């Protein structure tokens, strides 16, 4: 259901701060809406985003229902050496979506 898209540079120079842009398709059902029968539609959101670089947690975000559908998250990273960027989105209920890519530091 949820599909992540990520835009991050493949290479960086040492000491450079790079920008990572992410978007994941997800309805972010807030738990505030009602269906046609007047029943509250249960909350189902992406509640947590984590970014690891070379195995270390470098950025995280806790999301509330106030975050828009198809959550867009942009953050910065200063990679000291080449490594793997691993991104994880965690949904209510525990399901996870992930994306990883290598960043080469010259």
């Amino acid at each position, binding site marked *: 259901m949820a599909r992540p898209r990520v835009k991050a540079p493949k290479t960086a120079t040492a000491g450079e701060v790079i920008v990572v842009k992410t978007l994941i398709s997800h309805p972010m059902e*807030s738990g*505030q809406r009602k269906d046609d029968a007047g029943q509250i539609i249960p909350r189902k959101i992406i509640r947590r985003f984590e970014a690891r670089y070379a195995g270390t*947690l470098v950025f*995280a*975000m806790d999301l509330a229902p*106030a*975050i828009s*559908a198809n959550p867009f998250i942009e953050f*910065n990273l*200063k990679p000291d050496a080449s490594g793997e960027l691993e991104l994880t989105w965690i949904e209510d209920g525990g399901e996870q979506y992930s994306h990883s890519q290598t960043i080469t530091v010259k």
Partner: protein
Amino acid sequence: MWNRREVILGSLGLVVGLPRPALAGQDNGSGKLIEAFTGGKTPGEGKLSLTMPEIAENGNTVPLTVRVDSPMSPSDHVQEVLVVATGNPAPEVARFHFSPASGVAQADTRMRLAKTQDVVALARMSDGSLQQARTTVKVTIGGCGG
């Protein structure tokens, strides 16, 4: 006839004496959330910026940028930024957790705004000090699926 002093005092009494359900009804718990983050300390201002449009035509998706002026070194960096909506059904919007590897303490996302309201951001630094920023966004069409 009443003289001027009596009229002024009388109208003051009327204003003070009025029940204020409108104001009380606006509290969505944002005060408590802010208090829990600050622990009662008064945050400073100037280092944290919260950038949002002045007018949002569509409350379903309003861009938001938080940025903290910080060296982001192991000994002096931003740990956490909390974003609070004062006029949504629930006050919490997001918490951003930074680290020295962030390089620059900035994050962008998009949020829902149910109506015109103030949005508050609070930052906690590695030394425990706090920063606050606040902005008002006018919303044309609310964004909570009402």
